[in-house]
């Protein structure tokens, strides 16, 4: 459980607060999307979730423990953060060691490390690269490797910063599958993204941030129907919501995916006959 209570944050010696009066509660088994324009404070906010940044005022509690009280390593074991740029974390000589790095840091036993790394490699289709240098992988593979290296230690919360950047559509679909599978295991996945289509396919609880404050926290469907809020945060609509706008009031709800859209339209056409 991540609890954020009237969080204010500013960088040392800076004048303005980057985050202002943030209140949040994120439980287990949720999918949460965080969206907002560039420089709105999304990344600053997620860095509070494992204690990388400590609040200037207010509290962030993870499973009831204030982030000021323990080390980043302590919280990272429960909250796994996958950063946007794989280049900022890859350093090992082999793919295997790259995944094992965090597990060794957390002090897992040799046997468990071997088991977990093997699982992660298989799960992300990286087994054939296990003895290769991670620097030689393609962009998409590096991104998968970063995700694998975090999922390997089985954290309760998984935070993904811009997971879809530089990924082809197949990878995005696979990522959605992985996220949905994690949810069934009672994990929480928090996705920070600019990719409205991706967010729409996930149908998460959506948190919109603008200028360091939470503008809206609620159901993805209702937020994407609200033009004024979207405009305020500079977010465009997913295509399926635009389709719904065109067809309204013939259909009551925007379709979640293309298959649902198809069946809705088919129903409409049958009605017209």
């Amino acid at each position: 459980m991540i609890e954020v209570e009237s969080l204010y944050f500013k960088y040392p010696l800076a004048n303005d607060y980057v985050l202002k009066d943030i209140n949040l509660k994120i439980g287990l088994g949720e999918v949460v999307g965080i969206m907002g324009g560039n420089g709105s404070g999304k990344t600053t906010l997620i860095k509070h979730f494992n204690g990388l940044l400590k609040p200037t005022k207010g509290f962030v509690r993870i499973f009831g423990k204030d982030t000021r009280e323990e080390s980043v390593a302590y919280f990272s074991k429960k909250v796994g953060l996958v950063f946007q740029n794989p280049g900022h974390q890859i350093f090992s000589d082999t793919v295997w060691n790259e995944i094992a790095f965090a597990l060794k840091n957390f002090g897992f036993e040799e046997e468990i490390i071997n088991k977990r790394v093997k699982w992660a490699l298989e799960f992300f289709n990286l087994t054939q690269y296990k003895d290769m240098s991670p620097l030689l992988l393609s962009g998409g593979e590096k991104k998968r490797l970063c995700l694998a290296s975090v999922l390997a230690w089985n954290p309760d919360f998984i935070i993904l910063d811009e997971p879809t950047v530089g990924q082809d559509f197949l990878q995005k679909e696979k990522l959605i599958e992985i996220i949905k599978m994690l949810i069934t295991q009672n994990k929480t996945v928090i996705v920070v993204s600019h990719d409205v289509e991706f967010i729409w396919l996930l149908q998460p609880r959506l948190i919109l941030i603008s200028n360091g404050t939470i503008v809206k926290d609620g159901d993805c469907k209702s937020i994407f129907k609200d033009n004024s809020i979207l405009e305020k945060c500079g977010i465009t609509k997913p295509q399926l919501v635009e389709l719904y706008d065109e067809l309204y009031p013939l259909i009551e709800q925007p379709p979640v995916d293309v298959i649902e859209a198809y069946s809705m339209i088919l129903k409409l056409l049958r009605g017209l006959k």
Partner: protein
Amino acid sequence: MFWLAEGLVYRRQESIIHSLDPRVKLIISFSLFILSLFSSTIFEFIILLSAIFLLGVLSKVLRRMIKTITFSLTFVIMIFVINLLVGYDLIFSIVISLRFIAIISSSSIFFLTSSPDELDLVMRSLHLPYDLIFAFVTAVRFVPVILLDAIQIIDSQRSRGLEIEKGNIFKRIRNYIPILIPLIVQSIIRSEELAEAMESRAYGFSKKRTSYYTLHFKMKDYLILCLHLMLVVLFILLVYFLHL
């Protein structure tokens, strides 16, 4: 860590000093730098540092100059303590520490008030080979970028359970490997990308480079340069010849 980068970065601003010819700024900065090297009493440093801070106020960069000094404070304290431990007396250790602060703050006057483009122009007016100028200017321009990279990398590895401050001295040095390797790799990738982007925009095509801006001394530049040189001469006279 973010805020430390700010003390090293040029920002477009309006002030008397900013609007000077960069050559004048270089002379002011460099002469103060040289004077800090040769000064050896606390009294001299009080004069020098107040002159440097006065320039900081005039150019509205005092806050960031102080940030630069805060950034170097660890080294200042180290220098001070080591000098004391080696057996020099208190006054000498203070002088050495003040000298370090004066050197850093005097050179920061130039870098905080002159854009990398101005640096480029100054070096060109000294007739240095352009490849060298380009390499130097790019290095200066990329300091903040690499610093931001380093912050990202540290955050990234700490999120994977790396505790930099943990363990004995050898372990601590080893702890920097996961930070240094990505930093070096990123820098190499970036320089490659930069080279490719420049070549695709015909870098090095024309043998003789021209510049949109050229440097010209104005009345203001002459005035301030004269004033500055007079003050420097006065300082040298007072301190070295009259032994004030």
